């Protein structure tokens, strides 16, 4: 039970759950019942008549499958005697509304009770997910879980936020540097833990020689993967690539570029429903870059879906140049060591094609890189995982009990 003062209660709307039934006693991490609940949620979402038309909902349903959860369990440190922290409070992102579901799943799997502040923006996928979730929580076998879930919405209100943070044994903040700084101004219990998703920068590394040797069919497959990384979240996801780094000599890079970009532009023209304002925004961003960037070699507006800005060399200032909706920066390096001046703690995901992953790992260790948390084959840049931003989310949201 948690006592919510009336003046706080008056300022939020409850979407799922009830404050009178809400329970903050922790349970074991990776509890069988939680996994089975999420698996059932997965099945219900997949069965929804509109699921096929909503890629973000399908991705969530796929992710919530028991098989996927168990594979995350094996890679998580909390796969021993771990128990939840108690009450977790989540500030969920507005611009990827469906992410609230991942945040909820992590905290439940860690054995916590969860209060989530959902964005006031919603979309069709979120509505379906919320509806399916609340129906499932009405079923008697899931009552223990229903008591651990409390989803609310409120306009920005420091009193409400301060109340929940004062109670939270763990807090999960999606939403970048500004939101994190804002949340840290509120008092929390001394042992309260935090998972904060800051603003990040991501890039991809492509081996030109490999691409030059690929068959047309293989190029096409790679480009479909590449397309997902770049266009699925309009390139605005923190793990979507902003910069393509070509590894190789002049002639192989020229050949690889022409093959890959042409193929990607064709796929994007076919699959990506770009809006007028996105084309305009991209043009504005390109003009600003033309003025502000010190190092541009060439700009090519290849199609409404794809603009490429080639830069002569890279340094840390490159991170401030970002594109959306298919505005890609690219450059060429002769050896992976030339990446070093770009890497700091802001760098999250490095997706790769045709490069040995051990080469990248070796680069990170030998250069003592403070960034690059994920090294994934192209196509996997947006795949959510318990191991994210350099830490184990479920372990961080649970308490490991040692017994000797």
């Amino acid at each position: 039970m948690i006592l919510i003062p009336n003046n706080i209660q008056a300022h939020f709307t409850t979407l799922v759950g009830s404050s009178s039934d809400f329970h903050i006693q922790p349970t074991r991490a990776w509890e069988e019942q939680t996994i089975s609940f999420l698996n059932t949620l997965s099945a219900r979402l997949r069965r929804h008549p509109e699921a096929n038309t909503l890629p973000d909902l399908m991705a969530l349903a796929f992710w919530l499958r028991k098989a996927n959860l168990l594979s995350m369990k094996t890679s998580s440190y909390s796969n021993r005697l771990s128990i939840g922290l108690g009450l977790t409070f989540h500030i969920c992102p507005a611009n990827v509304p469906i992410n609230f579901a991942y945040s909820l799943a992590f905290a439940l799997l860690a054995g916590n009770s969860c209060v989530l502040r959902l964005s006031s923006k919603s979309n069709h996928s979120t509505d379906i997910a919320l509806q399916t979730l609340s129906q499932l929580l009405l079923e008697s076998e899931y009552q223990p879980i229903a008591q651990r879930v409390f989803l609310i919405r409120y306009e920005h209100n420091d009193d409400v936020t301060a109340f929940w943070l004062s109670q939270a044994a763990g807090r999960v903040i999606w939403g970048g540097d500004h939101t994190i700084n804002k949340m840290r101004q509120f008092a929390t219990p001394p042992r309260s833990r935090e998972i904060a998703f800051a603003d990040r920068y991501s890039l991809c590394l492509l081996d030109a020689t490999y691409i030059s040797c690929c068959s047309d069919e293989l190029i096409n497959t790679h480009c479909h993967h590449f397309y997902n990384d770049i266009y699925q979240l309009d390139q605005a996801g923190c793990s979507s690539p902003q910069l393509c780094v070509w590894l190789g000599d002049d002639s192989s890079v020229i050949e690889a570029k022409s093959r890959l970009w042409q193929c990607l532009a064709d796929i994007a023209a076919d699959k990506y429903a770009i809006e007028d304002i996105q084309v305009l925004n991209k043009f504005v961003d390109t003009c600003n870059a033309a003025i502000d960037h010190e190092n541009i070699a060439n700009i090519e507006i290849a199609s409404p879906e794809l603009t490429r800005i080639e830069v002569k060399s890279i340094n840390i200032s490159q991170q401030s140049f970002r594109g959306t909706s298919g505005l890609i920066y690219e450059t060429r390096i002769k050896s992976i060591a030339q990446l070093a001046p770009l890497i700091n703690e802001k760098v999250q995901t490095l997706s790769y094609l045709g490069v040995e992953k051990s080469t990248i790992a070796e680069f990170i260790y030998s250069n003592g890189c403070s960034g690059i948390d994920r090294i994934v084959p192209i196509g996997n840049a947006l795949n959510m995982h318990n191991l994210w931003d350099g830490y184990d989310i479920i372990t961080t949201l649970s308490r490991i009990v040692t017994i000797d």
Partner: protein
Amino acid sequence: MSYEVDEVILSDWPPYAWPKQQKQSVLISKLAELDQIHLSQCPPFAKLKQSMPNIDLNGHPFSPFFPLPVRLFKSQELKSVPQESIIKTMMSSGTSGQSVSKIYLDKRTSALQVKILSKLVTHLIGKQRLPMLVIDCPSTVKNRTKFSARTAGILGFSMYGRDITYALNDDMTINFDALNAFIDKYQGQKKFIFGFTYIVWLHFVEALEQLSKKIDLSESILLHGGGWKKIEANKVTKSHFKSRLANVTAIQSVHNYYGMIEQTGSIFMECKQGHFHCSSWSEVIIRDFKTLQPVKDGNLGLIQLISALPHSYPGHSILSEDIGVKLGEDDCQCGWKGTYFDVLGRVKQAEVRGCSDTYSK
């Protein structure tokens, strides 16, 4: 001061008399001169022109003049004269929230704006100063700490009237005492009325309708502009606006105007046929939303605005975020030469996706 010569020539251009070929050759040579000025005097503009590819695949008479997105006046400091020559910086919140556009004016550009605006207004209302009614409240111009586009507009257009009377009280209700006195005094005479579109609509037309009052402002010519989108949301069309206005005020001659703070002076007047007209100093190009290529007449697209006036900042060719359609050139029933077009609103903002800052907004 060599520029005084061409300035005389520029401000002597006839507003709507030149046929296409003549206008194009004069305007293009003026723009080429402006382009040279800005290339040599405005480093960000030079860098832009040097780095950006030529976007026009098929070429257009105005292709050499890069369509500079208006939003760049927010993110970049674009000026082509030394700081000490700047006499006024105009600011507008413009299209997308937080940051403001900054337009730097020197004496020459500022004077040109006044001259050309005067040419366009007097072409419409005649050279004689008319009794003028401003559909706004006096505090809009008195309170200079809140100098806005509204203030600038009222002050700018007030130069073409006399005995300026404000139709609204400071609480935006109608000042019937002042209004009736004005009507009595100038009954049967030609009068000039100016107001911002949404203010005329909300605080004048709708207010009169709600009070079930009718006033007699026949023999008047109303010039209005700005903020059309605020009332468009309530589904007010042009003809709607005119007929309901006429019903409560008996005003028959109504002219909307279209323009941007980035190109103050060279505004596009609505002709008797209800179309916006380019003058000799201005031109529009309609560009495809997706490919940004100039489209054929009659097709919708983004409006690129050309103006011969900006000498102190590179605003001679700008890409707006407004949707327009070119209806024709030199053949409007109203008799004015030049391109005529319609404006149909603004490009719709996209749904934001991704995972950057969210709580702050």
